[in-house]
């Protein structure tokens, strides 16, 4: 974590009084890829541990057993591993397993990350339990009335504070990069158990008929220290290539606005914003980006922001440390040449 989260978890009680709250356990649905928990999994554990020590992680998919060990070292007291769930997609059966487990143990809350699978499992669990869910959570707080969530509305322009009533377990979808993960504690004493999820009937009928892997050049958007994002201002896919070139020279990652993704200049996985990635790099360079609310919510917490736009009134300038009124197709070639000259 580079910058401290703006909101994140905080308690209203001095250390030690937490237990008086009689908080139940918090469960974290921890996604992993080939044995490595996703960064959001550690963030969820961090958020949960700030509220209680009684934290369980639930993980699944190929490599879940290897991931379980790491989850124990990052704050989970117990881990339930649901196996690889093939051949379907994970969400329907993970939700079915959670519904069973909730009926047995009634945790205080279940935390999910805002990812494809996280959203889907949370939605399915909410429907199964007939309990509401809170999305876009960026902060959590423990009060005398139990946990209270801060969450974005209207593309993040407003911040609401909400709590559940009679909803145990509360279902929370947390946004990435808003909660600090805990330091690794090794070795851990966490227990790991396997549980076979029940069948999920027709909801589990989706099959993958083809999968084309995308080769990742350079750092991922989540991890990059520098992100260079291009918007509609480039005008063509050929000119948009300058964004990738600049990102590569800076050893950073390429981002795109929804307009650039919709135009087919970049894959959806490069989209930054409300429906795409949340990034908080050291430096964010926005080129030909207007600065719509839905884009700002994905990048405005970057440590430093530079924006290049030919319109002096562009909204992106309102969040930039340096705004440059310029034609991207004139400035980027000069910037690229200047960087190449330094090598």
């Amino acid at each position, binding site marked *: 974590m580079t910058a401290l989260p703006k909101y994140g978890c905080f308690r209203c009680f001095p250390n030690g009084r937490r237990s008086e709250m009689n908080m139940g356990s918090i469960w974290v649905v921890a996604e992993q890829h080939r044995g490595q928990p996703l960064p959001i999994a550690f963030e969820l554990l961090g958020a949960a541990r700030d509220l209680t020590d009684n934290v369980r992680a639930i993980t699944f998919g190929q490599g879940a057993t290897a991931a379980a060990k790491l989850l124990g070292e990052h704050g989970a007291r117990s881990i339930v591993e649901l196996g690889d769930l093939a051949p379907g997609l994970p969400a329907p059966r993970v939700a079915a397993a959670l519904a069973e487990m909730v009926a047995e143990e009634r945790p205080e809350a279940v935390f999910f990350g805002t990812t494809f699978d996280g959203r889907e499992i949370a939605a399915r669990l909410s429907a199964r339990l007939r309990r509401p869910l809170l999305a876009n959570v960026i902060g959590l707080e423990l009060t005398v009335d139990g946990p209270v969530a801060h969450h974005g509305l209207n593309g993040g*322009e407003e911040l609401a504070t909400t709590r559940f009533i009679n909803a145990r377990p509360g279902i929370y979808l947390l946004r990435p990069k808003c909660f600090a993960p805990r330091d690794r504690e090794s070795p851990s004493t966490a227990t790991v158990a396997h549980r076979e999820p029940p069948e999920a009937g027709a909801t589990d009928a989706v099959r993958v008929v083809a999968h084309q892997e995308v080769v990742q050049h350079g750092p991922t958007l989540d991890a990059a220290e520098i992100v260079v994002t291009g918007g509609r201002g480039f005008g063509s896919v050929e000119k948009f290539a300058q964004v990738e070139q600049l990102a590569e020279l800076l050893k950073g990652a390429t981002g795109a606005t929804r307009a650039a993704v919709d135009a087919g200049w970049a894959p959806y996985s490069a989209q930054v914003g409300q429906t795409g990635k949340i990034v908080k790099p050291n430096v964010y360079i926005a080129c030909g980006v207007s600065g719509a609310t839905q884009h700002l919510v994905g990048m405005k917490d970057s440590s430093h922001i530079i924006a290049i736009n030919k319109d002096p009134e562009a909204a992106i300038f309102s969040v930039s440390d*340096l*705004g440059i009124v310029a034609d991207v197709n004139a400035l980027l070639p000069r910037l690229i040449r200047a960087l190449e000259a330094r090598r």
Partner: protein
Amino acid sequence: MRIAVCVKQIPKEHERIVFDPESLRVRRDGKLIMDDSDAYGVELALRLVGEAGEGEVIVVSMAPHDEETGLRHALAMGAARAVLVSDDALGGSDALRTATVLAAVVARIKPDIVIAGTESTDGYTGTMPIQLSELLGWPSLAFSSSLDLVAGELRARREADDGVFELSCPLPAIATVTSGSVEPRYPSLRGIMEARRKPIETLRLSDLALNAAEFEADGASEEVRSIVPAQQRAAGEVIVDDGTAEVRVLSLLSEWKAI
């Protein structure tokens, strides 16, 4: 082939939601229009029915005060008819409540496919269609950037972090579609004229045999305590490129230890 498209009708000034200071709910007493995000679903549904050579597109919506402006827009694009649920007991409904109502509508009109946007422009919870799929017990293809019918199954393309997936499932099924999946058509003048005469069935909760008090288990609910504008980041300096702005960028990048 019968396809239902979920359409959300949202305030025109969707750049700015107005919250009622008393109830802390989004105010929906002004004029509502179709959420732009839903035009993609309407377009895809019209194409699927067109390719199937038979069938109809039905738009479904839940909105206060019998609001139908957004539905007329979808009808003008080419949908055959609309079903609207409007009931005072539904004020301030969240995603689960909406899904509960739409599940009853789907059970009534029995479509083969339900299409929705990935998330609305105003609420942006992004879970309603999946809650709907779970309530109905149907499979769902979320975040689809294209939809096709292949050998009686629904096929979708999904662009994820770990690559591009081609997904398939039997009908009935639900799909959510991303923006940019297709170019939505603009209603023609003729379409707009015809839309005025197309049927919109308006239902109350009693028509669906639903009781809003029973939507959640154990009377579970949310209590909004406050809504405040989010913290804004302060604007910095703005310069006009005089042909040497790259020098300034490089010096900042090294000051920030980025190069």
